[in-house]
C-alpha cells in the first residue's frame, strides 16, 4: 500500500498532517473560541459586515472625565430593516463591547452579557424583552478611573421574515480618551523570532546549495540534493542533520532565555505575563537539554565515532535515521503546546504532583508526549552506538586503545541505558494520569508525592553526565592534539570516566535535600556527591598535565578547550557547595544553582562542543575554518558568558529564588534582595544579548568557511586517531569495508588476551557457532 504511493504524495500528506498538528491547538485556544465574535463579527446575519448598514454611536465626550457616566445613543440606518421589513415587530439588534469602564442598560430594551458587553433584549424565544423591535437604543457607560477605552459596535438590520436569510449587519469601532501604547506580547515576539529563524535556516540551506556551484544552479537540482540529505542513512549525513537540528534549537532556547531575561531586567516588570514566563523557562530548559545538547552530542558521535574506531558506518544505519527523525517530531509536540498559549508550565523537571494537577497547563500533556519520543530516540541511538563499539572496532583496537572521545560516548551510552527507563516509566505514568485518569501521582488517592522526584532525578542527574562526558571526550582529544602530547594517564582517564559513570548513579538525592526525603538517604547522597569530585578532579589534573613538555599550538579549538578548563573548574567547584546539606538548605532553588548548572552546561558542554566544532569542521567539510573570526567568537563569547553567569552566584547567595516571575527588593517594611540586585539583573540581561549575538559569529563562520575556506588536508592538526586517516571530507563508506585500517602502535605492544569484560561482551555479541561477523 505504502509502496504504491509515490514520494511527493507521501510528503504532501506528511506536510498537511504537520501543518494541521501545529494549527489545531492555536485555533482552539482563541480567547473567544473559534468564532471570535468581536473580531469576526456576527455571522448569524451574514458572513461579512455590509457597507449598506451604517451604525452610529453618539454621546461619547471629546474630553474624558474619569469615573463620569455618559449616556450613549446607538442607532443605525440602511439595510433590509428600512427597505423591505415584512413584519415591523423585529427591526434590528446590536452588540456593544467596551475595553474599559462599565456598560449598563437604562431600560428593558438592553441587557448585559456575562462578558460585560451589552446587547438588545429579545434575541431568543425565552427572552421576552422587546429590544429587537427598534433601531435605536440607549445605554450608560461609566468611564474608567484612568486611561481611555475602545468600543466595538455591531448592529443588525433585519428583514423580519423570522429567518437569518437576507439580514445584513454593520460594524463600527470608536475610541475615547488616551489609548495605551501597543505592547509586544512575549508570545508574539517568540513566534516571530522562531519563524524568522526557520526562514533564515531554510535560506542558509538554499544559499549553501547555490554557493556550491553557482554556475550550474538550477531549482530542479535542489530537491534531489536536499532529499538526499533528509532520506540518507549515512552516518555523516545523519550527523549533519543532528548538528543542524541541535544548533537551531540552541538558538531557539537562547531566544526563550533572551525574552525572559527582558522580563527579569528590572524588578516588577510585566513584559511577560506569569503564564508566559512559566512556559518560557520550562521550554528554555527542555529545549536546551533535550533538543539542543543531546542532538548536538548525537551529531558529534554520529560523525566521529565510526571514523575514529575505523568502521565504515554505524552498525544499524536505518535505526540511526529513525532515531534522528523522532527528534523533529518530538520538537513539534513540545512546541505545539506553547503556540496554543497553554504550553507546558511545569519546569523542565516537570514535578508531580503539580504536573498532574488541574492547574498545570493542558500543553503539559503534549510536553510529556514529546519527552517520550525523546526517550525513544535516545534509546534507539544508544543501542546503535553500543553495537558499533562492541562489534566494529578496527582490527588491533582493543578496548583500552579506543580514542577517549569514543570512550566517553561508550560510558555516556551505558549511563543512558541505565537511567532513561526510569524517566520513560515516569513519563508514561504522568501521561496516563493526565489523559485516562489513572492515579499514579494523585496524592489524595494514595500516590507518593516524592515518587516523580525520585524517578526524575534518578534519570536527571546521570543525564547531566550523559551530556557532559562527551564534552570531556572532545576536550581530551583537542588538548592532546594541540599540545602535541599523548593524553596524560590514558588509563586513569578511562577509569575516571567509568568512576563518574558509577558514582553518578548514587548521587541524585542531592537534588532532593529539601524535599522531605528520608534523612538517611540525604546523608548517604551527601557523601557520594562529594565523592564525584575525585574522578572529575583526576580528569582536570590529567588535562593540565597533558600540556607538560608539549608544544601547544594555539588554534580556536585550543582556546575553547582552555576556556572550558576555566569555566568547568568553576562549575565543578561551585557544585561542591550543594552536597553540604546545611548550605544547600539556603542555596537550593536560588540563582546559585542556576549559576552552577550553567557553568557546567554552557561552560562545560557547550564550550566543549564548540571546541569540537572547530576541531572537526575541516574533517567534516574539507574546508578550514576562519581562525580570526573564530578567535573573535571565543573572545566575545567567553567574556559575555561570564558576565551572565558569574553575578548569578552573588544573586543566589543574596537569596534570589529561581523560576520566579519577578524579584523583591528590600523595603522599609521587610528585608529581601539588596537594591544592587536590580543592577546585576540588568547587567545579566545585557550580557545575555551579547552572548546570543556572539554565537551568530559561529554560524556565520561555519557557513562562510564551509563554502569559501581553504581546502583542508586529511590531518590538519596532526592528530593520531583514525578519523585523520581518511580524506576530508570523508568518502562513503567512511572506511573501505574491504580494506579496514589496522591500528598500529608506536611502542612495542603485545596483544593481551581479552580480559573478563572483553570475553563477556564477545560472548554476548557473536554466537559461538556463527564463525564470524559477516552473515
Amino acid at each position, binding site marked *: 500500500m505504502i509502496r504504491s504511493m509515490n514520494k511527493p504524495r507521501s510528503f504532501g500528506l506528511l506536510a498537511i498532517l504537520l501543518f494541521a498538528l501545529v494549527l489545531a491547538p492555536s485555533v482552539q485556544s482563541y480567547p473567544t473560541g473559534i468564532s471570535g465574535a468581536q473580531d469576526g463579527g456576527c455571522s448569524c446575519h451574514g458572513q461579512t459586515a455590509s457597507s449598506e448598514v451604517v451604525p452610529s454611536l453618539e454621546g461619547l465626550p471629546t474630553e474624558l472625565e474619569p469615573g463620569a457616566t455618559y449616556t450613549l445613543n446607538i442607532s443605525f440606518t440602511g439595510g433590509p430593516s428600512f427597505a423591505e421589513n415584512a413584519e415591523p415587530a423585529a427591526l434590528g439588534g446590536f452588540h456593544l463591547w467596551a475595553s474599559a469602564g462599565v456598560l449598563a442598560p437604562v431600560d428593558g430594551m438592553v441587557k448585559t452579557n456575562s462578558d460585560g458587553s451589552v446587547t438588545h433584549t429579545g434575541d431568543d424565544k425565552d427572552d421576552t424583552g422587546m429590544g429587537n423591535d427598534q433601531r435605536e437604543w440607549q445605554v450608560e457607560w461609566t468611564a474608567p478611573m484612568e486611561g481611555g477605552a475602545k468600543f466595538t459596535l455591531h448592529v443588525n438590520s433585519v428583514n423580519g421574515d423570522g429567518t437569518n436569510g437576507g439580514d445584513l449587519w454593520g460594524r463600527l469601532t470608536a475610541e475615547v480618551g488616551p489609548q495605551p501604547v501597543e505592547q509586544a506580547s512575549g508570545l508574539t515576539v517568540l513566534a516571530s523570532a522562531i519563524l524568522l529563524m526557520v526562514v533564515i535556516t531554510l535560506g542558509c540551506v538554499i544559499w549553501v546549495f547555490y554557493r556550491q556551484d553557482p554556475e550550474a544552479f538550477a531549482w530542479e537540482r535542489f530537491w534531489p540534493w536536499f532529499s538526499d540529505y533528509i532520506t540518507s542513512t549515512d552516518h555523516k549525513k545523519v550527523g549533519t542533520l543532528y548538528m543542524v537540528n541541535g544548533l537551531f534549537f540552541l538558538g531557539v532556547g537562547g531566544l526563550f532565555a533572551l525574552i525572559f531575561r527582558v522580563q527579569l531586567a528590572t524588578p516588577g516588570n510585566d513584559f511577560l505575563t506569569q503564564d508566559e514566563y512559566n512556559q518560557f523557562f520550562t521550554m528554555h530548559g527542555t529545549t536546551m537539554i533535550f533538543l539542543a545538547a543531546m542532538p548536538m552530542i548525537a551529531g558529534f558521535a554520529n560523525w566521529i565515532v565510526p571514523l575514529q574506531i575505523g568502521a565504515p558506518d554505524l552498525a544499524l544505519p536505518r535505526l540511526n535515521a529513525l532515531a534522528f527523525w523522532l527528534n523533529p517530531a518530538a520538537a513539534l509536540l513540545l512546541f505545539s503546546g506553547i503556540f496554543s498559549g497553554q504550553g507546558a508550565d511545569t519546569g523542565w523537571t516537570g514535578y508531580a*504532583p503539580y504536573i498532574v494537577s488541574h492547574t498545570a497547563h493542558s500543553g503539559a500533556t503534549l510536553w510529556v508526549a514529546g519527552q517520550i519520543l525523546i526517550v525513544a530516540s535516545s534509546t534507539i541511538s544508544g543501542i546503535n552506538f553500543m553495537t558499533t563499539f562492541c562489534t566494529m572496532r578496527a582490527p588491533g583496537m582493543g578496548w583500552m586503545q579506543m580514542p577517549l572521545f569514543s570512550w566517553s560516548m561508550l560510558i555516556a551510552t551505558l549511563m543512558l541505558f541505565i537511567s532513561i527507563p526510569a524517566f520513560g516509566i515516569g513519563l508514561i505514568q504522568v501521561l496516563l494520569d493526565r489523559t485516562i485518569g489513572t492515579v499514579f501521582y494523585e496524592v489524595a488517592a494514595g500516590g507518593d508525592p516524592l515518587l516523580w522526584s525520585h524517578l526524575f532525578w534518578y534519570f536527571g542527574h546521570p543525564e547531566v553526565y550523559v551530556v557532559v562526558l562527551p564534552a570531556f571526550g572532545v576536550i581530551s582529544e583537542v588538548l592532546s592534539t594541540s599540545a602535541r602530547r599523548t593524553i596524560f594517564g590514558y588509563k586513569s582517564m578511562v577509569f575516571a570516566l567509568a568512576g563518574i559513570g558509577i558514582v553518578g548513579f548514587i548521587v541524585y538525592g542531592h537534588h532532593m535535600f529539601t524535599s522531605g526525603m528520608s534523612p538517611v538517604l540525604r546523608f548517604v547522597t551527601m557523601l557520594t556527591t562529594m565523592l564525584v569530585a575525585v574522578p572529575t578532579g583526576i580528569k582536570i589534573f590529567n588535562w593540565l598535565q597533558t600540556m607538560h613538555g608539549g608544544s601547544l599550538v594555539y588554534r580556536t579549538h585550543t582556546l575553547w578547550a582552555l576556556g572550558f578548563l576555566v569555566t568547568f573548574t568553576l562549575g565543578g567547584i561551585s557544585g561542591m557547595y550543594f552536597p553540604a546539606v546545611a548550605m544547600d538548605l539556603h542555596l537550593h532553588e536560588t540563582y546559585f544553582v542556576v549559576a552552577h548548572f550553567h557553568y557546567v552546561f554552557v561552560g562545560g558542554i557547550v564550550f566543549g562542543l564548540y571546541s569540537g566544532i572547530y576541531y572537526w569542521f575541516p574533517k567534516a567539510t574539507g574546508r578550514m575554518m576562519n581562525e580570526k573570526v573564530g578567535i573573535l567568537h571565543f573572545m566575545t563569547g567567553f567574556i559575555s558568558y561570564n558576565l551572565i553567569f558569574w553575578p548569578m552566584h552573588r544573586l543566589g547567595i543574596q537569596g534570589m529564588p529561581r523560576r520566579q516571575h519577578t524579584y523583591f527588593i528590600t523595603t522599609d517594611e521587610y528585608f529581601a534582595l539588596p537594591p544592587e540586585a536590580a543592577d546585576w539583573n540588568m547587567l545579566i540581561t545585557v550580557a545575555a544579548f551579547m552572548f546570543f549575538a556572539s554565537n551568530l559569529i559561529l554560524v556565520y563562520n561555519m557557513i562562510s568557511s564551509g563554502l569559501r575556506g581553504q581546502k583542508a588536508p586529511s590531518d590538519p592538526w596532526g592528530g593520531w586517531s583514525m578519523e585523520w586517516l581518511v580524506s576530508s571530507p570523508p568518502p562513503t563508506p567512511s572506511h573501505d569495508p574491504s580494506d579496514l585500517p589496522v591500528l598500529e602502535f608506536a611502542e612495542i605492544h603485545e596483544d593481551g588476551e581479552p580480559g573478563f569484560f572483553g570475553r563477556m561482551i564477545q560472548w554476548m555479541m557473536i554466537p559461538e557457532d556463527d564463525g564470524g561477523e559477516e552473515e
Partner: protein
Amino acid sequence: MEAGGEIFWYLFDIFNLWAVIVLVIVLVWMFHHSLRYRSKDGSDNNVDNFKPGVFPKENDNLTMELTWTIIPFILIVYLTYIAWGPIDEMWTADPDAHEISVVGNQWYWEFDCDPMRGTADAPESSVEMENRSAMMFYNENGILICELTTIEVEGQIKPLLRVKAEESYNFAMTSNDVTHAPFFLDWGLKEDTQPGMETRLYYTPSMDEVGSSLLMCTEYCGKDHGYMTAVVEVFE
C-alpha cells in the same frame, strides 16, 4: 540583615577558602603550562610523533596520578566531615519548641500559631483572636511568642508571622495541593511542603536576626509562584 543563617556562613567561608585554593592551583597550572609549553613560533613540533592510525606512546606517571587522586580525596573527606556536624543541630528538635503549622496552597501561605489547640497535647497557653486576621499566642507565663497578622507586599495583602528571638520553633509543614517550599531568607532555611506528608524545620532565631524578612516560595508551584510571599518578623 543578611541572607543565610549562621551555619550557612560558617560553612560557606570554609568552602570558599578551599575553593579559592583549588581554583588558584588550577589556574596557575593552566596558565603556566599553556604559556611555558607553547609552540614558540606557532609551528607544529610533533613532540610525541603522532601519526594517524598509530596509537601513540604512553604518557603517564602513576605517582602523580595517585597524588591527585588521594589528596583531593582527603580534602573531600575533610569537607564532608565539617559539613556533617551542623546537620545534627539542624535536624534535632528541641522538646520545648513551640509548634507552628505552615500550609502551602496555590498560591498563598497559611500559618497557625497554635495548631494544637483543643487537643490533649495543647500547651498551657492563651490565644487571642482579633477579628479574623490577627492571632496572638501567649505561653503559660503570659509572654507573647507568636503573632499572626497581615502586611502589604507590593500592593497585595500577605500573612505576617511574628516570632520571638531566642525561642525555639518547630515548623510542621504540609500542603493542600502541590509541592511548595517556604524560604526563610534570613535564616537560610527551606523545606518543601508536600501534600499528604508532613515535613519539619527547627529553628531558634537569635537576637541578631531581629527584623522582618520576606518569605518566598522556592518550589515551582504554578501561575502565581513568584508572588506567593509572606513576611516573617523576629521580635525581641
